[in-house]
Each structure stands twice: as C-alpha cells, then as structure tokens.
C-alpha cells in the first residue's frame, strides 16, 4: 500500500573540496521504508565523512519515516566523525524536521547546491 522506497547513491564535491556521498530516496518515507533506507545507509563506505540525504523525489513522509532518519543520526553519532546533511524537503517538511529536533544533528538545506556549499 505504500510506494516502495527507491534509493540511489552518488558522489559530489563540497565547497570545501571534500568528497560527499549523496544518498537519494524516492517514494514514501514511512515504516515500510526502514529496510531499504537503512541498507542504503549501511552501503556507504564507513570511511566517508560527509553524507547528504536527498529527499527531492520523496513523496509522502510520516513520523515513522523520520524515525528512520534519526536512526541514521544515532549510528553516525555513535561512529564519531561523520557529518550528515539533508536537502530536498518541501518547506512543510523542513518545518516538521526542525520541530522534532532533527535540525540539531543534521543541517537542513533547501537544495543540493546550498547543501554542498555548507559542507
């Protein structure tokens, strides 16, 4: 009943010159997305220090979906030196992510260009 979450991974250069891994999610971001999203996160090379989560093509997002992102923040925090940024959320979901506190552990940017400029 939920649109299967699809995942893609690519690399980009941050303003600082550092390499950044961008993980893009499309479809619904909900409880059913957990396996696909966490598998995609675990596929990123453990040595990668900067990750951007791209929600440009995400459709419906609910609080169980946000909990999956918090799970990533938890793992990144436990592992130490890894910076996570988020972009591509609509203004509504930028607000929602900020309300629940995600913005304290991940920079939320409107689009890829502004996300890369900050890393």
């Amino acid at each position, binding site marked *: 009943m939920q649109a299967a979450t699809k995942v893609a991974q690519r690399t980009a250069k941050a303003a600082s010159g550092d390499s950044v891994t961008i993980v893009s999610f499309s479809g619904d971001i909900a409880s059913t997305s957990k396996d696909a999203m966490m598998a995609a996160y675990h596929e990123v090379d453990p040595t990668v220090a900067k990750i951007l989560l791209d929600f440009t093509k995400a459709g419906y997002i*609910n609080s169980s979906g946000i*909990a999956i992102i918090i799970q990533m923040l938890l793992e990144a925090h436990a592992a130490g030196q890894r910076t996570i940024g988020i972009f591509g959320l609509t203004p509504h979901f930028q607000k929602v992510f900020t309300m629940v*506190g995600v913005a304290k552990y991940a920079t939320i940017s409107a689009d890829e260009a502004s996300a890369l400029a900050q890393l």
Partner: protein
Amino acid sequence: MRYGSSVEVRLPSELGYEKVAMSTAASMAALMGFSDDRIEDLKTAVAEACINAMEHGNQLNSSLCVNVVLSSSDDELEVKVMDDGRGIDTKPTAPNIDRKVLGEEDPRGMGMFLIQSLVDEAEWHKGPPGKSFVRLVIKLDKENS
C-alpha cells in the same frame, strides 16, 4: 460553505490508507479556503492520527475500520479520527532529540507531538470501542499556527 457540513470517511486499518484520509481532508480544507501551508499541516496531522488509530487503536486488525469525520463550520475545520481501541488520554510530550540520538529514547514516538504542534487544537479521548478518538481543529483566521 454552509454551516455544519460534514464528510465522513471509513478506512481499513492497513498502513498506507492514511494517504486516502489525507487527500479527503486536504480537499475539504481547500473547499473551505485554507491556504496550501495550512493544508500541508492538516495532512500530516491527519496522517499521524490515522496511523495511530490503525496501529495502536485497531492493532492493524484489517477487519476494523478507522472512521474520520470532517466537520466544517464558518471558521474552522474539525477532524475526529475514531478507532476501536481503548484510546489514550495522556498529553503528547516533545521528543528529546539528544536522547534519541544517544539511543536512550525510542527514535519513534513523535506522532502525537506533531499533531499537537501542527493544528490549532488537539484532544485525545478514551471511549468504548469505536468511540476512542482524537479531535483536531484548524482555524481559518489563524493562518500560522
């Protein structure tokens, strides 16, 4: 809009169907003249309320329905989301992101908080089966909650 019009939707207790209630609510709010921003707030609140009714109220028992009643008046839209569970009467608490990121608090548990934060009024009522509900209100003159 005529005072007191109401629309009712019944959904199966199956995750994903909350999106049907979101669309119905969004369309009713658009008819009433709510802004796109407020409609987004309402959609998220209605989705979270329906998911809770399906999961916690009806225990995902697909033979039980979630009943959503949307009632418009001159200046507000009231949404009641009813389930067959025992309901809840505790207030939502704000998620503690520090504790979540440290693994000291379940990463979930944000639905009720979001509902309360996104709408103008939110109340949870315990009731007999089929009569437990959460009641949400968004007001037309209050464009930013």
